[in-house]
C-alpha cells in the first residue's frame, strides 16, 4: 500500500538509469568481454577453446592460488579484528579521541604503492627499524635483523596491508558505532544494562553485518591487488595478481588470455566467499542475531 502510493507520486525510478547503464555497459560489458576473450582459441588454431584455463590447472598455479587466498583471508581477519578494536576504543566517550581521530585516518590518503614503500623502508634489513635496533644495542650486524620483506611468511605484506586497511575499517565502523550508541545506548542503560552488556547484546549484533561486509571488501581487494605483493612478497610461489600481471605485460598479447583467466579465477573465489557469507548471514538472522 505504502509502496504503491510512493510509486504514483514519483513515477518511474529514472534517476538510477544513467548509473545502471554505465554499470551494464562498462562493468558487465567489460566482464563479459574478458570472459569471452579468455575462452577464445589461440596460437593459429593449435590452441583449443579454453586453453588458458587448461594451462592454469598446474600444481604451481594452485600453490599460488592457495597462498593468495590464504593471505587475503589472513589480512582481512587481522585488519578486521584490529580495526574493530580500534574503532570501539575510539568511540568510547572521551574528548581527546575525537581530536586525534584524523591521525588514524591519515593512511587512507595514500596509495597502496606508497604503503608498500613506507613499510619496506622501515622493515628492510637495512631499514630504519634495524638502524634503531642497532643504536639501542639489540643487534650488531645487519643480518641479525629478521627478514621481514620478501620473506617466507609474508609478514611484510601483512603489515603493509594492515597499514592501509585498519584505517579503512576505522573509517567504516566509527560513524556506524557512533550512531548506534546515540540510538541505543540510552535505552539500554535505562533498562539497566552495563556498558559491557550494551556493547555485547545491543551494539555488536547490530553492526556485525557491517563488520563482516568490511572484511569481505578487504578480502576481495587484497585478492586482486598487485602493488603490495609485487613490492613486498617473495618471488616464490608468487601471488596470483603478480603472476597475472607478468603474463599481461611481459609475454605479448597472446598471453593476455592467461592473465585474464587468472583474474577470473580470483573473481570466482571472491564470489564464492561472498555467497557463503550471505548464506551464513541468513542463517544468523534466522537464529535471532545472537552472538
Amino acid at each position: 500500500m505504502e509502496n504503491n502510493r510512493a510509486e504514483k507520486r514519483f513515477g518511474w525510478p529514472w534517476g538510477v538509469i544513467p548509473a545502471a547503464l554505465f554499470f551494464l555497459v562498462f562493468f558487465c560489458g567489460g566482464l563479459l568481454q574478458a570472459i569471452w576473450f579468455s575462452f577464445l582459441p589461440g596460437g593459429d588454431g593449435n590452441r583449443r577453446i579454453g586453453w588458458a584455463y587448461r594451462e592454469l590447472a598446474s600444481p604451481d598455479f594452485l600453490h599460488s592460488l592457495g597462498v593468495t587466498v590464504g593471505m587475503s583471508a589472513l589480512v582481512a581477519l587481522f585488519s578486521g579484528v584490529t580495526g574493530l578494536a580500534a574503532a570501539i576504543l575510539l568511540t568510547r566517550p572521551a574528548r581527546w579521541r575525537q581530536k586525534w581521530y584524523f591521525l588514524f585516518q591519515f593512511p587512507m590518503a595514500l596509495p597502496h604503492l606508497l604503503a608498500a614503500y613506507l613499510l619496506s623502508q622501515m622493515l628492510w634489513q637495512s631499514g630504519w627499524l634495524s638502524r634503531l635496533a642497532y643504536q639501542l644495542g639489540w643487534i650488531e650486524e645487519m643480518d641479525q635483523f629478521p627478514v621481514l620483506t620478501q620473506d617466507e611468511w609474508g609478514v611484510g605484506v601483512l603489515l603493509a596491508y594492515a597499514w592501509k586497511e585498519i584505517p579503512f575499517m576505522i573509517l567504516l565502523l566509527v560513524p556506524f558505532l557512533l550512531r548506534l550508541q546515540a540510538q541505543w545506548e540510552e535505552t539500554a542503560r535505562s533498562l539497566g544494562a552495563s556498558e559491557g552488556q550494551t556493547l555485547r547484546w545491543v551494539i555488536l549484533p547490530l553492526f556485525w553485518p557491517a563488520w563482516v561486509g568490511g572484511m569481505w571488501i578487504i578480502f576481495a581487494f587484497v585478492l586482486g591487488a598487485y602493488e603490495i605483493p609485487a613490492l613486498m612478497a617473495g618471488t616464490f610461489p608468487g601471488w596470483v595478481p603478480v603472476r597475472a600481471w607478468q603474463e599481461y605485460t611481459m609475454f605479448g598479447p597472446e598471453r593476455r588470455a592467461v592473465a585474464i583467466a587468472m583474474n577470473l579465477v580470483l573473481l570466482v573465489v571472491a564470489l564464492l566467499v561472498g555467497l557463503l557469507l550471505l548464506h551464513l548471514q541468513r542463517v544468523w538472522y534466522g537464529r535471532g542475531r545472537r552472538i
Partner: protein
Amino acid sequence: MRELPFILRSGGRLAEWLLLGLLALFLLLPLIPLVLWSLAGHWPWPEVWPPQWSGKSWAYLFSTTGRAWEGLLNSWLVACLTLVFNLLLGVPAARTLAMRRFRGWGWLFGLFLAPLFVPFTVTVMGMHLWMSRWPGEFLFISVAIAHVLPTLPYFIAILWYQYRLLGGRLQEAARTLGASSWQIFRWVELPLLWPGLAMGSVLVVLISLSQYITTWVASGGTLLTLPLLMFPFASSGKASLVAVYSLWYMWPVLCLYLVYLWAAGRTSGK
C-alpha cells in the same frame, strides 16, 4: 567475547591509551624516514640520521626526465573527471535508491556495489579490449571511466545513506509550496547533503589518485600519473627518489584535506 567488555569496564584508561598509541605509532612512524630519505645524500646502514644532506632527488624530480608537473596534472585531471562522472551518475542514483522502493531494487544496489566485493581488474582488462580502439584524445576519459568502477560504489553508498537520513518530508513541503524539482535539489537537499557530498567527493578523488593497475590497464601504460611514475623507482628500491615522489604526491592531498576541514568547519559553524 567475555573479556572485551571486561577490559573496557575495568581495564583502565592506561591500556586504552597504550593500544591506541601503539596503533598511531605504527601508522605514523614510517613518515619520519620518508622525509629523511627525501633529503638524504649518502646514508649508510647503522646511522639513524643521515650524515649528509643533498637535494639531488628533488632536482631530479623537477628535471625534464622527472616529469613532476606532468604526473601531477595527469593524476588530478583524471581525478577531477572521475569526480564529474561520479556526481553525474551517483547523485541521481543515490537519491532514487534512497527515496524509492521498486522491483529489482536489491539487485540494482548489489550491481552498484559489486566492484567492491569482487576483484575488478579483470573487468578493466575486458574494457581495455575495446576502449583501446578509441581515438587517443579519449585517453583521459577512458582512464576516468575505469576509475569510476572503484569509486562510484563508495560515492553511492555514502550519498544513499545521507539521503536516507534526510528523508522526504522537507522536499514534500517545498513541493507543496510550488518549488520545482531543481529548486528542491538546489535549495533544500544540497545544503543539507553538503557534508556527505563533500566527504564522498574527497574519497573519490583520493581513490582515483591512488590507482595504479587500473590506470595502467585502461591507458595501456601510456598515461603517466604519479603512481605510474613512482612504481619503477619503488620496485628497484631507489628509496630517495620514491620519498621525493611521495612527498610530491602528498602536498596537494594535504591541501585538499585542509580545504575540506575549512569547509566542514564553516558549515558546522553556521
